[in-house]
C-alpha cells in the first residue's frame, strides 16, 4: 500500500514541477529551488512530516524533502540547545545526501568523460 502511495504522491509532485516548466519560462534551477523552499516552509509548519508519514518515499525522495530536512535539523537542535541550534543543527539530517552527492560526483567525474 505504501508503494502505491509513494508512487502517486511522488508522481504528483513531479507532475506539478513539469507543468510549471512547460507553462512558464522558469528554468529547472528556479523550480527546484522553489520546491526546496516550499519543503522548508511546509516543514516549519509541521505539514511535511505528515506527508512523509502518509506517502513515505513519495515525500522523502523529491528535492522538497531536502528543505524539510534542513528545517527539521535546525529545529531539533534548537529544542535541545536553544537558538544556537539553528546554526549547528541544519546539516544533521541532510548530511548523508550532500556527502554522497559530493563523493559520488567526484568519483564519477574522475572515472568517466563527458560525451554528448
Amino acid at each position, binding site marked *: 500500500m505504501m508503494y502505491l502511495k509513494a508512487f502517486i504522491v511522488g508522481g504528483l509532485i513531479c507532475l506539478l514541477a513539469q507543468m510549471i*516548466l512547460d507553462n512558464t*519560462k522558469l528554468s*529547472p534551477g528556479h523550480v527546484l529551488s522553489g520546491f526546496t523552499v516550499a519543503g522548508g516552509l511546509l516543514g516549519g509548519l509541521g505539514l511535511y512530516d505528515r506527508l512523509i508519514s502518509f506517502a513515505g518515499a513519495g515525500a522523502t525522495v523529491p528535492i522538497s524533502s531536502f528543505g524539510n530536512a534542513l528545517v527539521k535539523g535546525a529545529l531539533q537542535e534548537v529544542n535541545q540547545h536553544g537558538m544556537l541550534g539553528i546554526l549547528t543543527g541544519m546539516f544533521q539530517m541532510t548530511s548523508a545526501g550532500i556527502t554522497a552527492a559530493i563523493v559520488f560526483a567526484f568519483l564519477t567525474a574522475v572515472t568517466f568523460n*563527458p*560525451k*554528448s
Partner: protein
Amino acid sequence: MAKKRLGMQTVQLEQPPVIIGAGSAAGPMEAEGPLGLDFDQTYPDLTIGQQSFEKAERQMMIDACNLALKKANLTQKPPQIDYFLAGDLLNQIITSSFSGLQLAVPFLGLYGACSTFCEGISIGSMLIDGGFADKVLCAASSHNAAAERQYRYPTEYGSQRRPYAQWTVTGAGALVLASSGQGPRVTHVTTGKVVDMGIKDPFDQGAAMAPAAVDTIVTHLKDTGRKVDYYDLIVTGDLARFGHEMAIRMAGQQNVVLDERYKDCGMLVFDPERQDVHSGGSGCGCSAIVTAGHLLKQMAQGKVKKLLLVATGALLSPTTFQQGDNIPAIAHAVALEA
C-alpha cells in the same frame, strides 16, 4: 558618399573577389544529415581524438582551412595568404586565435556570433577590392559540446529542450577569396545593424535573430534596387524552422515576399524527422559548412547562379540574459554570383 557605397548599408565591389577554394569539416550528426555527402571531411565523434572539446574544434578549423587552401592550390607553408579572418563562439575566440597560431599568417579575429562567416567574407572582400590584399582566408566554426558547456548546461545535464530550441552545429568552414581566378564572385556586401525586438529567452534564438535577418535583407534589396526574384536562392544562416517562419512573416509585413527560394542553413543541415534537433541547427559552423560544403557545390554545378547569403547572429552572453537584458541580433549579407 564613399565611392563604392550603395544606399544605407551596402558596398558594391568594383572588382568582385573570387572564391577560389572552400573547405568544410563536420561532426557526426552533421555527417548523418541530408548534406552529409557534401562535406569534405567528417568525424566519427565529438572529441576527434583530442583532449577536450575545445581542442577538437581547433582541429576542425585547421582541417577546414587546409582543405580550402589545398583546393586553391596554396600549399606552401606558411600559405601565401595576406589575411586570415576567423571567428567562433568560444570565449575570447580561442579556436580562431589558436588556428591562426598554426597557420602563421596575419590574423584578424572576428566575433559576430553565428553571423561570423559572412562577417569574414564581407571584410575579406573589402580588403581585396580595396587593394589591400590579394588572397584572404575566411573561416568560422562551432562545436556543440564546447558551446553548450559555455552558454548553457553541461552536456550530461538532464534538462528538456524547448521545441523552438536549436542544436549547435559541430563544424568548421573556410573559404579562400582572391583578387583573380575561377569561381563564384562576391559582388555586394551588406553589413547589418544590431537589432533588438525584445526577445529575452536564450533558447529562442530563431525569434531573436529573425528581425535582424529581415532588416538586412530588406535594406540590401533597397540599397541595390533588386527584388527578391533577382536571386535564385536567399539563404539565412541559422534561423531554423521557427525563426524561418517568423522571418517570412516579418518580411511580409514590409511587403517583401520570401517565397520558396528562401531557405535556411539550420533547416538544411539536419533532418528533423530522424534527428532530435527541435527547430534546427545553429552556430557559426552552420552557415560555414552549408555554404562551403553544399551551396558552393550547387553553384559550381550551375544549379544556383545568384545567391544571397545572410548569416545571422544572436549577440547575447550568459551574463547578459542572466542580468535580464534582451537578446540583440545582427545579420550580414553577401551576394554571390557564379
